[in-house]
């Protein structure tokens, strides 16, 4: 049935692919998170000039497929002369940068909405108390709203990490040799779809379980004060 030798011979390819997948996913997640915090704060603004554009951005990136976003950047950027003549072109003409950009913009949109929801769920009394103590708006965000919002957002953000890990498989469609592309190469070389794709599936599954395990540990730490006391 399954030819173990094919898997064994191509293990280095799969491992390199795994590294690329992890690198792409977590770099995009890191940049995305950094972008998402100011975006989420902007989304809570009552000024439509601040809130509106951010809403349109998150609406677009959450309402369209990641694959199409990637193609828009990877194939689409070259359509415009002003981009081809810009200083960014050496980067935008490379697949890894386009994938990283698409993934970052995508996860930033999802994360901003997760954080916005978490900020909106802050108990009113906490904000009133902070205001009564004379804290400024910026200080309230930094000391009160954001720390508890991060904590509340953790379960939903854990799902976003897994979505990004699985979503990153589309990088294989723009010449990037990630874990999925490794499987596609093995399938094309040996015409052995079971070995090729089941191996990639096993790798992805291991990564998924490892990440969900880590998040559960983090949740236990961050949500320790919410658990019932068992003495």
């Amino acid at each position, binding site marked *: 049935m399954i030819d173990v030798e094919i898997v064994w011979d191509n293990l280095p390819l799969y491992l390199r692919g795994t590294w690329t997948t992890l690198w792409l996913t977590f770099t995009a997640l890191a940049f995305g998170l950094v972008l998402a915090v100011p975006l989420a704060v902007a989304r809570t603004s009552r000024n439509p000039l601040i809130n509106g554009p951010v809403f349109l951005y998150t609406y*677009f990136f959450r*309402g369209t*497929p990641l694959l*199409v976003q990637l193609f828009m950047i990877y194939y689409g950027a*070259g359509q415009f002369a002003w981009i081809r003549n810009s200083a960014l072109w050496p980067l935008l003409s490379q697949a890894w940068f386009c994938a990283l950009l698409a993934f970052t913009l995508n996860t930033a949109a999802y994360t901003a909405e997760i954080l916005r929801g978490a900020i909106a769920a802050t108990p009113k009394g906490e904000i009133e108390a902070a205001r009564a103590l004379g804290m400024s708006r910026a200080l309230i965000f930094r000391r009160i709203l954001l720390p508890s919002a991060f904590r509340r957002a953790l379960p939903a953000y854990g799902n976003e990490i897994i979505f990004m890990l699985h979503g990153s498989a589309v990088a294989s469609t723009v010449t990037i040799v990630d874990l999925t592309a490794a499987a596609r190469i093995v399938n094309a070389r040996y015409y052995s779809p079971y070995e090729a794709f089941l191996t990639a*599936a096993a790798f*992805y599954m291991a990564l998924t379980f490892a990440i969900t395990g880590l998040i559960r540990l983090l949740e236990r730490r961050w949500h320790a004060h919410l658990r019932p006391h068992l003495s």
Partner: protein
Amino acid sequence: MLDLKGYGPAILEGAVLTIEAALASLVLSLLFGLLGALAKLAPLRPLRLLAAAYTTLIRGVPELVLMLLVFFGGQMLMNELAAQMGWGHVDVGPFAAGVLTLGFIYGAYMAETFRGAILAVPKGQLEAARAFGMGPLLVLRRILIPQMLRHALPGVGNNWLVLLKATALLSVIGLEDMVRKAALAAGATRQPFTFYFAVALVFLALTTVSTLLLAAAERWARRGEGRGP
């Protein structure tokens, strides 16, 4: 507006195929989801284990990888089967492989949604139905499914939005959906951004209409709940 250089009708044709694939996958996923949820709540342990394995394993792997596995692996399986049975060449095709995979994957997500919704139906209602002499299938059709629908609707709606966007992946295994049509038009006109942006706008329109319809459906499903005291 966007100048589609005469490729507008082709993109629309692809959009129809995208919608067909999404709806077919939805029907399949609802079926797999209902079976999965019933198995998860079954009194038989092997059934529960099978359902747990289904939902856990499927949700650990990207859609694209499973799609490629079913597309290439399914073709190989059909070739072997056809050779043994003495059939001619049987083509699996991207539509069948894609819809089957998406239905199977989102069935796992639907199963989790349905499981929660079924548990939200008061047990007494099911017991009352049995006491009236209804058979298990009749209880399912008349009591359980209509009652759990309103609890399941928000989750089903979310799954549908994710599924709809996942149909874009069908272009990778060669389905002539709107993403693939856009790629062809992009190659011919050298205006890839225009066409992929147009496709993105169609997806945005589809998700927007879906969201509005789902909100209306949720209001309809909650019509019996009243407005409280």
